[in-house]
C-alpha cells in the first residue's frame, strides 16, 4: 500500500526546496535580472552547508554559510549582468558551471563523511492534531518547512503591498521611470540578485541538511534549480502560484520514489515493481511535467496578456533612452 499521507508530508518538505529557490528567482526577475544559475547556486549551498556541518557540527551555521556562499556567487552574476551589461542568459549559465564545478571540487570526499548533525524536526503541538492536514503540514517537519509557509505570504505581501515592493516592480518594469523617481536601479538590482542567491543557497542547504541529507555531487540537486526557474515562469512571477507548483513538484518527486516499492498499485499488479526499468519513465515525469506546465502557462499568458517583467533581461544603461 502507498501511504499517501507520508508522500504528501515528504512532498511538502521537498517542495520547500523548490519554493525557496523559486521565490528567490522571482525576486531577482521582478527587479529585471534573470539568473539562470539557480542550479549552480543551490549546489554551492548544499555543499557549503554539508561541509560546514561535517566540519564544525553546526547545521544552523551551515545554513548561514550556504546562504552566504550562494549569495556571493550570485553577486558575480550581478556585476557581470548589471554593470558589464553582459547577456544574462550566458552569465547565468556561467554561474551554473562555476557553481557545479566549484562545489564538486570543494565537495570532494564529502560523500564519505559519515554521520553529521542535521536540522531538527519539529511537530507543532496543537495544529498537528488536525485530521489529515495535521500530519501532512505540521508533523515531523524540519524548521525550514515552517519558514516556507511564512515565506510565501510574506513575499507576496512584500511585492504587492509595500513601498519597497513597489520600487522592486518599478525597477523591473520600467527602470528609466524608476530612476527618474529617484530609485537607485543599480543598487536595488544588486540587492535582489543577492537575495535570490541567498534563497537558492538556503534551498541547497535545506536539501543537504534536511530533505535528503548528504552530498551526492551533482545528483544532490538533480535539476531542481532548473525546475524552480520553470516554476517561476509558470507562476507568472507570483509567489502563491510558485508555492502551489513547488509543493506539487515536491510531492511528485516523492511519489515517484514510492511508486516503485509496492507489489500492487490501486489493486493491480504494480508494473513498476515487476519491470523496474519502467521507472525511467517515472524519472522523466517531473521534467516532462515542467514542459507541460510551461506550455499551459504560456497559453494562459498569451490569452491574459500577462508576461514577464518588461525589463527582464535588459541591462539598464543610465542616460540612454529606453524602457
Amino acid at each position, binding site marked *: 500500500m502507498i501511504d499517501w499521507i507520508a508522500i504528501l508530508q515528504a512532498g511538502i518538505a521537498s517542495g520547500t526546496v523548490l519554493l525557496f529557490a523559486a521565490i528567490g528567482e522571482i525576486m531577482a526577475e521582478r527587479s529585471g535580472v534573470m539568473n539562470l544559475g539557480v542550479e549552480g547556486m543551490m549546489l554551492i549551498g548544499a555543499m557549503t552547508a554539508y561541509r560546514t556541518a561535517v566540519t564544525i557540527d553546526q547545521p544552523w551555521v551551515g545554513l548561514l554559510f550556504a546562504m552566504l556562499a550562494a549569495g556571493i556567487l550570485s553577486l558575480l552574476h550581478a556585476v557581470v549582468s548589471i554593470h*558589464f551589461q553582459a547577456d544574462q542568459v550566458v552569465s547565468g549559465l556561467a554561474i551554473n558551471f562555476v557553481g557545479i*564545478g566549484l562545489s*564538486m*571540487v570543494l565537495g*570532494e570526499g564529502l560523500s564519505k563523511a559519515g554521520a553529521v548533525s542535521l536540522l531538527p524536526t519539529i511537530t507543532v503541538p496543537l495544529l498537528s492534531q488536525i485530521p489529515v492536514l495535521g500530519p501532512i503540514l505540521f508533523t515531523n517537519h524540519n524548521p525550514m518547512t515552517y519558514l516556507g509557509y511564512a515565506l510565501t505570504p510574506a513575499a507576496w505581501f512584500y511585492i504587492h503591498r509595500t513601498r519597497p515592493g513597489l520600487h522592486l516592480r518599478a525597477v523591473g518594469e520600467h527602470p528609466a521611470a524608476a530612476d527618474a523617481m529617484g530609485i537607485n536601479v543599480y543598487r536595488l538590482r544588486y540587492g535582489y540578485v543577492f537575495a535570490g542567491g541567498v534563497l537558492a543557497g538556503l534551498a541547497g542547504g535545506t536539501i543537504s541538511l534536511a530533505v535528503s541529507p548528504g552530498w551526492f555531487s551533482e545528483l544532490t540537486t538533480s535539476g531542481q534549480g532548473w525546475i524552480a526557474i520553470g516554476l517561476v515562469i509558470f507562476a507568472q512571477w507570483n509567489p502563491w502560484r510558485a508555492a502551489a507548483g513547488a509543493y506539487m513538484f515536491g510531492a511528485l518527486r516523492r511519489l515517484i520514489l514510492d511508486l516503485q516499492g509496492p507489489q500492487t498499485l490501486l489493486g493491480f499488479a504494480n508494473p513498476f515493481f515487476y519491470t523496474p526499468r519502467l521507472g525511467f519513465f517515472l*524519472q522523466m515525469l517531473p521534467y516532462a511535467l*515542467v514542459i507541460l506546465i510551461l506550455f499551459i502557462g504560456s497559453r494562459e499568458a498569451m490569452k491574459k496578456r500577462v508576461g514577464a517583467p518588461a525589463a527582464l533581461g535588459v541591462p539598464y544603461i543610465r542616460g540612454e533612452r529606453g524602457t
Partner: protein
Amino acid sequence: MTGQEMSANPVGGQGWQFPFSISIEPRLTVPKWLPALISVGSLGVAFVIGGIVLAVAGGNPLAIYAHLIRAAFGDIGVFNDTLVKASPLMLVGLACALAFRMKLWNIGAEGQFFLGAWGASAVVLAPILPRDTPAILMIPTMMLAGVACGALWGLIPGFLKAKFNVNEIITTLMMNYIAVSWVLFWVFGEWSESGFQMSPMFPRNAWLPRLTDYAAQIPQFAGLTLHAGILFGLIVSVVVWFITSRSRWGYEIRLIGDNKEAARYAGVDIARNTMLLMMVSGGIAGLAGMAEIAGVVHRLQGAISNNYGFTGIIIAWLAKLNPFAVILVSVLFGGLIQAGREIQPSGVPRMLQGIILFCVIAGDVLLRYRIQITRR
C-alpha cells in the same frame, strides 16, 4: 554618460590625490584584433583565478596545470586522445554557435547528443539493418538516424517556442534529463547485454574508420584511435560558416538574433526559422552523438558524454560563435577533458570551464567600453 557609475573611486583622502584619473567611456569602434585578444586574455585570467581556487582547495596549481598540458598535448598518443575528445565537442560547439546566432538558447545539445547516439544505435540494435550490412550502407544510415533523432529532439522545444512562446531555455534543458532516462531505459532493458547496463558491442561494420585501422599501410598510425568523426566536425564547421555568413537563411538568422522586431518588420518568418534552426542545431548535436558511439564507445551505454553538450555552450561562446574558432577551442577543451580525467578532485575541469566562460563574458565589457588612464 554611462561611465560614471563604473569609474573607480580614487582614494578618498583630502590632501593626497591619486596621480592618475581613470575614465571609462563607451567604445565607438572595435578594432578587428580586439575580440581575439580579449578571448585569449580572458582565458589567461581564468586560469589564474582557477589556480587561486585550486591553491585554496589545497592543490598545487602549477603542478596541476603542468600535468594538464603534458597529459593533453605532451606526445602524439595523448594528443590523439585529445583530438578524439575534441571531435564531439566541435559538433556540439557548432550546434550551439548556430543556435546562439539567432539568440535561440539551445541548452539541450546534451540531450540531442544522447538521442543521436540512441538513433544510431537503433540502426544496429533494433535492428533496422541486418548485422552484416556493409559499412558503406551501415554508417550513412546510422548518421542519418542520429541526425534525425537529434533534430527531432531539437524540434520539440523549437515547435513549442515558435507556436506557443514557451521558454526554450527551460524546455531544452528538461529534454536533456528526459533523453538520459530514455537511453537508460533501453540499455537497462531491451538492448542490455545479459543484464549489464550496456548494449552489446557493435559489429565492426558499424564502426567509424580510425587511423589505427590503417596501421598495416602506415605503421605510424598504430594505436591512434582518432576516427572519422573529426572530419564531420571540420565539414560541418564549413557548412555552418556558409550558412551564417554566406546564405540568405543565415542573413535572416542574424537579423532575428540582432533585432527581432526589425526582422519581423522585414517580413522574416520567425516561427519557421525557430523550428528550422532548432532542428538543424539538434541534428548537428545528434551527429556528435552518433560519431561518439560509432567512433569511440562502439556500444550504447549510459555514460557516453563527458558533459559534451554543456561544454559546447562554453566553446561556442569562447569562439565568439565563429565556426572556425569553434574548432580551435574544441581542441583546447578536448585537452582539458582528456587531461582532467586523472586529476583529483574530479570537478577541476568543469570548474575551470565555468571560470573560463565567466571570464570571457566579463571580458566582453572591454569590447563595449574603453578604459583610459591619464595623468592628472
